[in-house]
């Protein structure tokens, strides 16, 4: 009897599957399993669907959190913006400048900075106006208002545009922050398209390699623009007219030249209340309060 049952068992060895139920302790399976190599699908701890769900969940949380936090800030900034515009229209330029500057500090926006520049221009502060319009261009290089105002102001007061190198000019094609996202996104897209098909055992396709190559090219092309953005952060503008460019960082320092309001300068280093700058007239020291940085922290 026992031998007969063993024979039956041996006959059925090839027809049954490797039973998970047994290893998991379930008694529902009544079949006797045969050893087979483990299936590769059994070893995928996270499916692609699960990974994509996790990524979506994280992304939605980040977006919702950011939007929620940004809405309260935006409400206050918008009030300041509207108040500044109203004050400008009523001719109260000092009040308008205060409100618009507060709005720009709280939440830098291209339109706010354009209006701040107009206000400062009306107040006769050409340096501050040019600084504000340059900041608007920094945020949005496609803003025609800021571009036109800068051209008008520089033509009127006879001040040159900043002397940009080729990679700085390239960096002005897109908003300053866009280049970092372009570079980061293209780099990881290229690496991902190279690495992930092997990890997930997707069939390698020529389109994947083409996209990876394009992404890598975009990454390499964005590197000079990234460098241009970094060097442009050293740019600033003279805020007061007839600003003396001193040979030493002291009030008694000999003035080598007089800088016009709105003249572009590049910050080299800071010592005390003075900033060493490079201008078209050479290097020299100007007071910090007479120097308006493009990238205010």
């Amino acid at each position: 009897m026992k031998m007969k049952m063993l024979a039956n068992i041996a006959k059925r060895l090839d027809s049954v599957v490797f039973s998970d139920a047994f290893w998991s302790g379930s008694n529902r399976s009544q079949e006797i399993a045969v050893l087979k190599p483990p299936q590769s699908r059994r070893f995928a701890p996270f499916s692609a669907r699960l990974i994509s769900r996790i990524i979506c969940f994280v992304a939605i949380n980040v977006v919702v959190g950011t939007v929620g936090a940004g809405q309260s800030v935006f409400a206050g900034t918008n009030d300041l913006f509207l108040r500044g515009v109203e004050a400008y229209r009523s001719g109260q330029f000092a009040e308008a400048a205060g409100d618009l500057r507060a709005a720009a500090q709280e939440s830098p926006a291209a339109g706010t900075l354009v209006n701040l520049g107009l206000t400062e221009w009306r107040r006769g502060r050409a340096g501050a106006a040019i600084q504000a319009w340059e900041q608007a261009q920094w945020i949005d290089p496609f803003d025609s208002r800021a571009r036109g105002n800068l051209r008008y102001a520089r033509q009127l007061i006879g001040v040159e545009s900043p002397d940009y190198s080729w990679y700085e000019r390239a960096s002005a094609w897109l908003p300053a922050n866009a280049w970092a996202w372009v570079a980061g996104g293209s780099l990881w897209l290229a690496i991902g398209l190279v690495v992930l098909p092997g990890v997930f055992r997707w069939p390698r396709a020529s389109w994947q390699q083409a996209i990876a190559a394009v992404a890598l090219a975009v990454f390499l092309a964005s590197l000079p623009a990234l460098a241009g953005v970094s060097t442009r952060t050293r740019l600033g503008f003279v805020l007061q007219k007839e600003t003396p460019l001193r040979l030493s960082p002291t009030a008694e320092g000999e003035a080598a030249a007089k800088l016009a309001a709105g003249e572009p300068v590049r910050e080299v280093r800071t010592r005390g209340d003075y900033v060493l700058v490079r201008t078209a007239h050479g290097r020299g020291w100007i007071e910090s309060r007479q120097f308006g940085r493009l990238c205010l922290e």
Partner: protein
Amino acid sequence: MFPRFRSAVAAALGVCLGWFATSQVCAQPAPTSAQANALMQLMLSQPPVDINSPVTATATLDPPVVEAGETAVYRLTLNALESSVRWPQEIALPPGLKLTPSARGQILRQDINALRPLTALNFHVVAERPGFYMIPAFVLEVYGKPVLVRETPLEVAAKLEPSRERARRLLVKPARTNVFVGETLRVHVRLPSVISNLVETLTQLQFNGDGFLDDKMIFRQQNELLEIGGRMTTAWLVESSVTPIAAGRQTLSAQAFTGGRQFIGPIVFTGQINLLASQPQNVLLDSDPVTLEVRPLPPEETTSGFTGYIGNVSMETPQISTNSLRVGDAIRLLVTFRGDHRISRLAPPEAPRVAGWQIFPPMPAEPPFVGPVTNLRAAFAYTLIPMTEEVRQTPAIPFSVFDPEKAAYMDLTISAVNVTVSAEGLPVDWKPASLADEARPEQKPSLSALAPTPGKTIGSLVPIQMRSWFLPLQLAPALALLGLWSWDRRRRFLEAHPEVVRRRQARRALRREKRALRRAAASGDAPGFVARAVAALQIAAAPHFPAEPRALVCGEVLSLFDEPERTGSTGEVIRSFFTRDDSASFSPKRDDPMPLFALQPELEGILKRMEARL
């Protein structure tokens, strides 16, 4: 106008001559002999400025007796050039006396053979308490030499008669005190006469104030009656203008020298007056400051073409030289504006660039009328040339002015005029060369309107790659890829070594069975205890073959042990459990499994040894 001009030219040439005579240094290229002779003759024909006479300083107080708190004018006069005077660092004034600079000026007086300079400095002196004060003597440096200014007494009384003599001052009255930046403002300056009906004129009128541009124009001079302190007196009136150039509260004051009978500019005499017959004294007078509220111009929104004119202006209908013309003919568009005295400052609007027309910049058609009355009309002529016969009217020319009374921009756009243009006499295929270019209007840079919304917004002006969170954010994908790579490597290892997986699964299953075994023993479930014991032995042995655990029989489990163990107690225990399980499964006769509970310690030891081998 002539005496002022002559004195100014004479002063300049005199200084040049003195410098030329003393320095012998010439930075300019040497003139030709003919030019040099002419220049020398011109210079030598002018009287020299006297800078060699001994310098004397005269200090006076006007009036010498004042009430407490009343202002007296301390006048210091020197016969020297103003630029040569070096004021001392400090003057030790008696306590309670306050000295404030109010005006300083210079005049060159014509003498027989020289121009004699006169420099005057005015100070306002105020004493709060009655008493006898003495402005001490001090030393000035003039032409590098010390000049003594003698002490000057001032008597301050507690109360004086209302009809007393007061300091001689100018009276300034602007036409308005609420003005706009850039608006030309008429100002009346009056000099009350000291003696009734005795008229004394003013010369070198000058306005002081940081926020004003002195226009240096005199529109009118006349005598008039003025009531001062309930008494009618004759006053000399000079009407001039200033232009505010800074917004906010601004103070304006005037200063001038008394000029005796010297008249400059248009003059109107009315009534019976006496002219000062003697040589003028040229006393420097000044006024109290008046405060003006200067407002900035509002932004131009609905109008266009503002050229900076502030005033009340009307425009006459534009006149065109002809309405019927040929392509290439020039026509003249005459535009006439009428307004107040400021009309002479009106700048015409630039003509826009319009396809089909070539327009030349406007030219004054009538010179502003020069005379004692204000100029009330200004005309400008535009020259227009049609470049195609398709045009039907002249282009409208945007223009606006700012009306200070209404505080608003007034649209004065020069309207279009209908014309008929023919291409008579021109070749059929003639095309103006510049028409294609003119079709694109020139984009003249100008300030934009206000942005209606904040527009594109960012968190900070600092670029994100320079912020602290950006690098960790970029490392996140790297860490994710590293994790995936590690996971893939482990997976590949397990695929190559399935026994590792089996042993791990067996260990898990064995622990589970042992727990069930103990529960069965504790509850006295003998069949369950036997079944769990057999299953545990099968699970512990399965990875060694490898095989499905339930397919293993007692002999296969025992084959894992050495011969002494198989034949010893270990083998006996294992066989006991298998035998009892087989009989429970296949034999109709059931043995009592209860005695096997006693073998639980031995069984646990066997299972522990087998688990150690997994």
